C-alpha cells in the first residue's frame, strides 16, 4: 500500500512539500543553529531607504517583521514546531477516538440514534470558539503571571486541543465500524463461533484501517486550521506573554517562532505592512493544501485497494478447511483440482 501511495501523484506532491519543509526546518536548528538574520534599516548607496518592517525584496524574499527579523528564517525555524505539534495532536485524537469508537461501534451501536444526538452539540459549536473558551485561562498571562510552567502549558494545550475533537471523531469511527459489522461476512464469522473480539481483530480491522488513515489526515488539517485561528486571536502555542507595563506595553509575544504566534504578532500591522501577517497565513494555507493533497491520494489508493482485497479474502480460507468428501460435487472433476492447485500455488 505504501508503494502505491508514493506512485500516486497527489500524495507524492503533498508529501514532498511537507517533507522538504520539515527537513529545512530541522537543518536550520541543527546545522545553522537557529540563526535569524536581522535587517533593521535598508541602505542603498549609503542612504537609508527603508526601515523595518521591510517589504519583500529580491534578497529579503518575504520581507521582515517589525523588529527587522527576516520572515523566511522565522518561518523555517517555526515549521517543525507547528507541523510537529499538529501531527501529535491529530495522533492523540485518533488514538482516543479509536478507543471510544470501538466501544461504541462494537457494543453500543444499538443506541446509535441517542449517542449521535448527544454528540450533535459539536456540530453547532465552532471548534475554535470552544478551544478559546477553554484555553484562555491557561494560556493568556494575567498580571500575576502564569500558573503553569511553559512545558505544562504546552501539554495542557495539546491534550485539550486533542480531546475537544474526540467525541465527533469517535462517532465517525464508530459508525464506520457499525457499518462493517452489518456486512454478511460478519454474520458468517459469528455463526462459525468467532467471539466479538476475534471478529473485531480479524474481520473488521482490515476494513477499518484505511479509513483510520483518512480520518487521521482530516484531523491533521483541522488541527492546523485551529492552530492558525488561535494564533489569530493572540492565543499562542505554549502561552501568550502579555506585558502589563502601563506606559510602554509591549505587544503580545510568541515564545518560539511557531507559525500561529507569527500571525498574532503581525496582526496590528495588517494595513501598513500586510506581508507580516500574510506570509505565515500563506504558509499555513500551503501546508494545509499539501495535507489535502495527501488526503486525496490516500482516498484514491484505498478505494482501489479495497476492490483488490475482496476476492482473495473471501475465497481462500473456507475451501482449504473443508475436507474432500464434504465439498460440492463438481460438474467437471478437473475444475476443482485446478482451483486447489492454484490456491496452493498462491500460498
Amino acid at each position: 500500500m505504501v508503494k502505491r501511495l508514493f506512485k500516486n501523484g497527489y500524495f507524492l506532491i503533498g508529501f514532498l512539500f511537507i517533507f522538504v519543509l520539515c527537513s529545512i526546518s530541522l537543518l536550520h536548528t541543527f546545522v545553522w543553529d537557529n540563526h535569524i538574520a536581522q535587517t533593521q534599516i535598508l541602505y542603498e548607496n549609503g542612504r537609508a531607504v527603508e526601515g523595518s518592517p521591510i517589504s519583500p525584496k529580491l534578497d529579503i524574499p518575504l520581507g521582515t517583521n517589525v523588529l527587522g527579523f527576516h520572515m523566511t528564517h522565522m518561518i523555517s525555524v517555526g515549521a517543525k514546531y507547528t507541523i510537529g505539534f499538529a501531527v501529535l495532536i491529530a495522533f492523540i485524537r485518533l488514538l482516543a477516538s479509536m478507543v471510544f469508537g470501538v466501544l461504541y461501534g462494537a457494543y453500543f451501536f444499538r443506541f446509535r440514534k441517542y449517542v449521535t444526538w448527544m454528540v450533535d452539540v459539536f456540530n453547532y459549536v465552532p471548534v475554535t470558539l470552544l478551544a478559546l473558551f477553554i484555553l484562555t485561562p491557561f494560556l493568556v498571562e494575567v498580571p500575576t503571571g502564569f500558573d503553569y510552567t511553559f512545558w505544562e502549558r504546552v501539554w495542557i494545550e495539546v491534550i485539550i486541543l486533542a480531546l475537544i475533537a474526540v467525541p465527533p471523531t469517535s462517532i465517525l469511527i464508530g459508525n464506520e465500524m457499525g457499518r462493517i459489522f452489518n456486512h454478511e461476512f460478519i454474520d458468517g464469522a459469528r455463526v462459525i463461533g468467532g467471539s466479538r473480539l476475534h471478529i473485531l481483530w480479524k474481520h473488521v480491522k482490515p476494513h477499518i484501517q484505511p479509513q483510520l488513515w483518512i480520518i487521521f489526515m482530516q484531523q491533521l488539517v483541522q488541527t492546523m486550521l485551529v492552530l492558525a485561528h488561535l494564533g489569530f486571536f493572540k492565543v499562542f502555542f505554549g502561552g501568550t506573554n502579555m506585558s502589563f507595563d502601563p506606559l510602554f506595553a509591549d505587544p503580545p509575544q510568541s515564545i518560539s517562532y511557531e507559525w500561529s504566534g507569527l500571525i498574532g504578532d503581525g496582526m496590528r500591522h495588517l494595513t501598513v505592512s500586510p506581508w507580516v501577517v500574510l506570509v505565515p497565513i500563506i504558509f499555513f494555507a500551503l501546508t494545509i493544501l499539501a495535507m489535502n493533497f495527501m488526503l486525496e491520494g490516500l482516498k484514491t489508493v484505498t478505494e482501489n485497494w479495497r476492490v483488490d482485497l475482496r476476492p482473495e479474502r473471501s475465497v481462500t480460507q473456507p475451501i482449504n478447511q473443508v475436507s474432500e468428501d464434504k465439498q460440492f460435487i463438481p460438474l467437471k472433476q478437473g475444475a476443482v483440482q485446478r482451483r486447489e492447485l492454484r490456491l496452493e500455488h498462491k500460498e
Partner: protein
Amino acid sequence: MRFFYNQVLRFACIVIGIVLMAGLPTLLPSGGSFHLNWMAYFQSIEEIISGLSHLQEVTYNTGGTERKLLTQLMSIGTYSVTIVVGAILLAFIAAAVLTFITMLLPPKWIRKIKVGTFILESIPDILIILICQLFVVWLYKKTGLLFFEIASLPGEPIYALPILCLSILPMIQYFKVMISIVEGELDKQYVELAKAKGVLQRKILLVHVLRNSLASLLNHSKTVIWFMLSNLLILEYIFNINGIMRFLLEYLNPVIFAWSLLAIFIPNFLLFAIGQWLLERSTNEKVVM
C-alpha cells in the same frame, strides 16, 4: 407525531450538551494543580441552569456597569443571524447557478473545474477574509471607489461585504457537493428515460435533478453551517462587527456562553427541522439527521 417527538428529544439532547459544555472551564484544573474540580463543575452547571431559566435577570459587566443580557442578545443576535442567513442563501444560489453552468460544459472541462475547486476549498478562511478586506482597500486606493464599507462603527452596521466574504467558502463547498450529487443523479435511469423522450438537458437539470438532490443537500448543509460559524468568528473580529461571536469572545463566562450558543443554535435548528419536514412530505427522500 413521531417526527415531532424525535425533534423535541433531539433538541433536548443538544441543550443538555450545551449546558455541559459551558461548564467545562471550571472543571479543568486551575491555580497550578492538576486535579479536576468536579464540585466546582456541578456548581457552575447549577448556575448555568438557573441562568437559563431566568433570562430576564442575567446581566453582564462592561467597564463597571451591569447590563441586561437579553436586550443585547436580541440586537446582536438578529444582526449575526441576518449575516449568516444572507451568506448561506447567497452561497447556495451562486453554487446552484455555477453547477448548472458547469454541467452543460464538456466533461474535460468539468474535470479541470473539479481540481480547481479542490484547491480553492483548501484555502483557510482567515486568508480569504483578509484578502477580501485588503482587496477592497487596495481598490479604493487605486480608483477612489469604495464599493463596500470595510469596517463597522457603532450604530452603523454593515451588510454587503461581510455577507459576500462569508459566502465564498460555503459556496465552494456547496459547489463541490452539488457537482458530485448531480453527477450521481445523472447516472440514474430516470434521466436516461427523460433523455430518450427528448427532454432538454437544461430542463432535466432544473426540474428533475434539482428536486431529487435537495435532500442530500440539506444533509450536507449542517456541515456547511458549522463551518460558517467558525468563519463568522474570524469575520466579526476582522471587520470589527459587533456581533454575537465577538460578544462571546469578550465575555467568556459560562452563562453567557450557553445563552449565546443557544441564540445561534435555535434558529438553525428550526430551519433544519422545517426543511426536513417539508422535504419528507413533498419528496420520497429520507433525510438522516
